[in-house]
């Protein structure tokens, strides 16, 4: 489940080029368009990502790690299925650290909130594929992803019905025209979230977030996420670096996309249990996908 949601980072960091009459859109429409486009670009994606996590300190407005960061490196493949491509299948394999290398997870998630997601885990120490009880995504409390500051909630998409949105301001931010949109969870959502409010700086031209601030239940700033190294690949915009700072724990996690291939042809059989145990099969397909990275 964690790895499946981790892949959503990539969706979240990506959005296609999009031009529109910005002033005609209300906040909900902006968020919906951003969400819809994120789903479209995740249909057939290979990525190699690295998450570095550490405690941080600040000196002269420069944020630095004050301890050796923990580093996780993984490769993931995902594809969208179902009506409106709202269901997803993905497989993730950890490459580093050495103690976790080879851990593989296959996850199927469904847009229908009444339908349980499905997950299988392969641990080399266990020597077999194990089905996991994961429940429906709506049923889960937010949890940290691989011990990082990114939580399942930070990665979530497609739950726009559960929030109300308001444009707080619009104007130039870091040289780009943005909307600053406030997102407030409804009562049902409030029980399942750690946040009372989220502010999103949405780039008006590229329809990607440039910054996100999340506030705790007492209204205090809790997390701040910055998106950097924004690139256009195959007509799609993506941020290759996302850094989340947890102001309570004074820890940060940086997700760096080392390699990515968008809209690639992913064999349906690759997104099955075979990939977890048939390493020769997995490497054969991955080497083909690696050759297509941008």
């Amino acid at each position, binding site marked *: 489940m964690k790895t499946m949601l981790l892949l959503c980072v990539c969706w979240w960091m990506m959005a296609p080029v999009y031009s529109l009459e910005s002033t005609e859109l209300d906040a909900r429409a902006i968020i919906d368009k951003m969400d819809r486009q994120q789903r479209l670009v995740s249909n057939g994606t290979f990525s190699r990502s*690295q998450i570095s996590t550490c405690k941080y300190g600040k000196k002269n407005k*420069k944020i630095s790690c004050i301890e050796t*960061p923990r*580093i996780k490196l993984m490769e993931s493949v995902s594809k969208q299925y179902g009506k409106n491509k709202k269901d997803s299948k993905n497989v993730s394999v950890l490459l580093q650290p050495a103690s976790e290398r080879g851990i593989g997870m296959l996850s199927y998630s469904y847009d229908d909130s009444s339908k349980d997601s499905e997950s299988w885990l392969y641990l080399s120490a266990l020597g077999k594929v194990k089905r996991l009880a994961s429940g429906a995504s709506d049923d889960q*409390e937010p949890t940290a992803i691989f011990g990082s500051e990114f939580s399942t909630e930070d990665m979530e998409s497609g739950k726009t019905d559960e929030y109300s949105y308001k444009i*707080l301001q619009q104007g130039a931010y870091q040289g780009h025209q943005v909307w600053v949109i406030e997102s407030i969870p409804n009562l049902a959502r409030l029980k399942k979230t750690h946040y009372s409010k989220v502010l999103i700086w949405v780039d008006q031209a590229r329809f990607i977030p440039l910054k996100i601030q999340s506030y705790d239940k007492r209204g205090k*700033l809790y997390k701040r996420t910055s998106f950097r190294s924004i690139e256009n690949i195959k007509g799609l915009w993506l941020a290759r670096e996302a850094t989340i700072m947890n102001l309570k724990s*004074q820890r940060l996690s940086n997700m760096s996309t080392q390699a990515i291939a968008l809209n690639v042809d992913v064999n349906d059989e690759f997104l099955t249990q075979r990939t977890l145990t048939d390493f020769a099969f997995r490497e054969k397909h991955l080497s083909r996908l690696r050759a297509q990275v941008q």
Partner: protein
Amino acid sequence: MRKGLTCFFILIGLISHAYGDFVEGPDDTLHQDHSLQDEWLAEDLLLETDELEFDIPPGKIERRWWQGMSASLQHDVTQTSSTDNINRSKLRLEYESSISDGFYLLAKSSYRYFNQQDSLAKKRGEAYGKARLQQLWLQYSTQQCGYTLGRQTLVWGEVDGSFVVDVLTPFDLTEQLFTDYGDLRKGEDMLVMDCFYGKHQSQLFYTPSANVHTFSHEQPHVETGQEWGGRFKYSLANLDVSLMLAHLYWNAPFLNPVGFQLQTQSYRLSALGVSKAVGRLLIKMDVAHKTNQLDLISLQRSDTWSMAMGVDYTTADNQNFNMGFWQQGATGEVNELGIPLQMTLGWSHSLWHDDLSLSLLANVSQQPQYENITWLATYKLNDVCSFTSALSLANIREENPELVPPLANEALSFSVKVEF
């Protein structure tokens, strides 16, 4: 024992202290600036450029041919209330990589050194070392099937910790019990063919000469023969069903009173495994019919039915609770006590950003008669180094000690591992 307990609590204290140190940070030129909160809270500053500079070590990992290589160094110490103390070191080397299109190679070996204080070294009368090739196999993949040839492990069954169906690969019981579970398995030379057809998966295996459990390094060779079998697995939404048939040898050899030789015999296994996920609950079941099974008490042989059932429940905050029982009886008989032969209860949870893993496992056995409880804590100091400690308490009521697994009434274990 008291000293051991003191050490255990000191270790926990040190871990807590170490964690506290990280909060302060080692570099006093850097400070954790809470004024950041105030700056970012002001809504009239929302559009001000507040871009921060990040100085995060890239730690970029290039993929090279030696990327597939890893090594670990481990030292285990266990103090027990009996004489079965453990004091040994282990070096493990592993290599795995795709060597050509469609071919994959894995090699896993270890060298263990048993210090003079170790119970196995004491039995031998001197410290000694032992190398082991745990796995060495080559895998080849075609359109629908994968073939794996070489020394490998094969695990069947859904209910963890029960040996209703998980009887293919024997164990090396000279390994420390709480070390990596993968190290406990004793690889066998075999050919395995796996074929995949959408939701169906079929598996066939052939072993020219079966292995048995290893209890000591002085164990004499046990004559065995060929093993073979197959499994058909079908996956539906939230349901996995497996049917298994195999011709196997007993993993636990017995001492034949005639000639005083360790012997094993062949038997036939027919089994069904089911795993069903219902929300946060995972229900698992293994049922097996085995021919020619030896009753260790009466030393009579009969066909048996065995069944294991288990449930896993994962809470919203990712705590895992599990329960299982395992029952076995001769065909046509009912267990005379009418209660499970083995019952397990477990809990596990990860804390401190997954740096600390805790688990508790209780086991109640009616035959042989014993109960034990094990508390396990693993702390990852960083990506390379980890500490594990375990406390195991057992109440052994069985009169025949040979029937009881290697357990002491009280045992306290520590392990440190460096992996890179």
